[in-house]
């Protein structure tokens, strides 16, 4: 045979290489350890979220390993920084799967990086649990890609239904962030939910940049319609200034309605008393009595000397969900993990009111909490039964 076949050579040398790698790296990684890829946005514009996720994920990996949850098997995280940048997200996904040969991936921070990188994980047949992206459609990518969070649209709809039922709401306004997919997606859903409940939308105004803090023009237009409720669909850092400016623009009694980013130290500090009466749904809050969460908040606060926020909770929760999946799979085999994701059923979680969740349509199911902000600036349960 004249033609040289590279296949056997490639095969044998890759076996040799694999052995070499295995031998070379035995010191930290023992035979039944399972490598997990953790791509996050640790630098760049989304780093404020990614770094908080990383802290909590390290905590979760330590807990899984030290508690013997997987017997003698340990999970070994391989962190990678996508720099809040889409091409880099694809690159690190490839590297984690092909170079580091991870058994599964848990992580990702920004929506567009999820949209671009998750199809890569799917093509490389690596089971992936994304921890933080809430744009719709991620659960349609393929049978290897699961979501540990879900878009908040249904929660916000439920909040509006409950709010209209509980109070006399006739008019509503919306202030939303135009350059972010999550809020642009949420805005028509909120508008429809109000209209379905017979509430008139008196103003619907956009903020064009995440760096903006001057909302005076929008808020003057909105204040002119004297809305009973105003939905604030902005970045966490903009929510506080928007609340203060809205009160200054004359909306003294308007109820602010929002999503889970209303619940943060930052919003509380910036908005102060102006946030009183705000209403929002959240799949998680620090004081949630769910047993897994009580432990999480205690451990996190002890280790990092600060209270965890939503991003930390998202990261922590995703790692523990994956640990439960791997326990069911019983090995680090990618196919076994994928099958386990399909068949796992109920899992423990720090989210929601029940402390349990399942994958449905490849994303978690949750029942949210509904909160209102009291005089002291604390989030307390809203819509209590009379």
């Amino acid at each position: 045979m004249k033609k040289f076949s590279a296949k056997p050579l490639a095969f044998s040398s890759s076996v040799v290489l694999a052995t070499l790698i295995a031998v070379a790296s035995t010191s930290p990684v023992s035979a039944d350890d399972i490598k997990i890829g953790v791509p996050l946005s640790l630098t760049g514009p989304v780093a404020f979220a990614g770094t908080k996720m990383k802290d909590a994920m390290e905590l979760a990996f330590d807990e899984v390993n030290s508690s013997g949850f997987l017997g003698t098997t340990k999970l070994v995280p391989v962190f990678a920084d996508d720099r809040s940048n889409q091409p880099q997200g694809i690159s690190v996904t490839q590297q984690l799967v092909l170079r580091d040969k991870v058994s599964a991936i848990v992580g990702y921070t920004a929506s567009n990086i999820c949209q671009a990188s998750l199809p890569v994980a799917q093509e490389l047949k690596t089971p992936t649990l994304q921890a933080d992206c809430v744009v719709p459609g991620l659960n349609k990518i393929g049978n290897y890609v699961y979501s540990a969070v879900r878009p908040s649209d249904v929660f916000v709809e439920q909040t509006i239904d409950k709010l209209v039922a509980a109070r006399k709401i006739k008019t509503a306004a919306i202030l939303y962030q135009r350059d972010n997919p999550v809020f642009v997606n949420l805005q028509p859903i909120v508008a429809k939910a109000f209209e379905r409940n017979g509430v008139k939308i008196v103003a619907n105004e956009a903020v064009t940049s995440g760096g903006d803090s001057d909302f005076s023009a929008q808020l003057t237009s909105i204040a002119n319609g004297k809305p009973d409720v105003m939905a604030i669909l902005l970045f966490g850092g903009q929510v506080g200034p928007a609340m203060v400016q809205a009160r200054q623009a004359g909306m003294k009694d308007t109820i602010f309605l929002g999503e889970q980013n209303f619940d943060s130290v930052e919003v509380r500090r910036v908005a102060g008393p102006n946030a009183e009466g705000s209403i929002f749904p959240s799949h998680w809050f620090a004081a949630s009595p769910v047993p897994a969460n009580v432990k999480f908040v205690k451990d996190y606060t002890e280790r990092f000397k600060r209270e965890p926020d939503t991003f930390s909770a998202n990261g922590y929760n995703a790692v523990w969900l994956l640990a439960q999946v791997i326990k069911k799979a019983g090995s680090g085999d990618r196919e076994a993990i994928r099958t386990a994701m399909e068949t796992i059923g109920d899992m423990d979680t720090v989210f929601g009111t029940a402390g349990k969740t399942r994958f449905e349509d490849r994303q978690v199911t949750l029942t949210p909490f509904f909160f209102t902000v009291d005089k002291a600036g604390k989030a307390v349960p809203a819509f209590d039964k009379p």
Partner: protein
Amino acid sequence: MTFSDVADWFQIYNHSFATALINAVMALSLYFSLRAGIFNLSAVGFMALGAYTAGIFAVKLGTISIVGITVGVLVSLAVGSILVFPILRLRGHYLAIATLSFGGIVQALALNLDSLTNGPAGLIGVPVTVKVWHLLIIVSVLVYVAWVLTTSRTGRAWDAIRTDLSAARAMGINVEHYRLVSFLISTATAALAGGLWAHVNRVIVPFEFGFPQLTFVLVNTLLGGISHPVGPVLGALLVSTMPEWLDKFEQYREMIIGFLLVVIVIYLPNGLIAPFATMRGRKFSFFKPTQAKPSEGES
């Protein structure tokens, strides 16, 4: 190193390579402008135009990639041909601001023309058809073209215009013509980079075509230096792989890039390539007009 090691290595880093090579194409786009002394900051705007055109053709019309990429280049050339006349009448900071605001307009339109661009949610599902070897060929061809142009009559005219526009005109060089050529080649190259970007990165969001992208391209081009077409390519490849070395300093990355920019323009105004690049024996200078020494003969 066995064959399969290399094969593995290529597979693992294939997307990083692709990204570095696309950055090289962008750096070359800036090279074509800077070479003629046009401080053109519209490259990222045209990159976005190229990326969106390619993306829209691939996703909404289902054409093969080369059609979308080509149309993207043509659309950009068309827009560029309209803009080039008023823009080139401006000088210095006026030109910089005008081209910068063009980029701003493109980004804002991408954000707001939802029916076409799908707004901030991004154009999803662009097929990954561009491979590393395509990009290698494209970069090689571009470097070759740049080299041929730079060493030709056109390149000499560009150098003369960059060094002293009025003198160039006085020498009888058709300044308008050569600047137009430079601007349009730069535009087409940026749009090409955008089209390729789309077919490597799957999702097109307006967010990726902002000021950070522009500073990145500037660093690449200026670090490499524009005294030789290889300079920008070298700069792009270096900067694109640099973060791997700098992983320990990740939170200082922006600061490091900023520092690099400052240091380059002050202490290394002609880039890393400068010591190696004496094209056809002529001394080169970008930021500082060359002092004519009597001993230097005209080639």
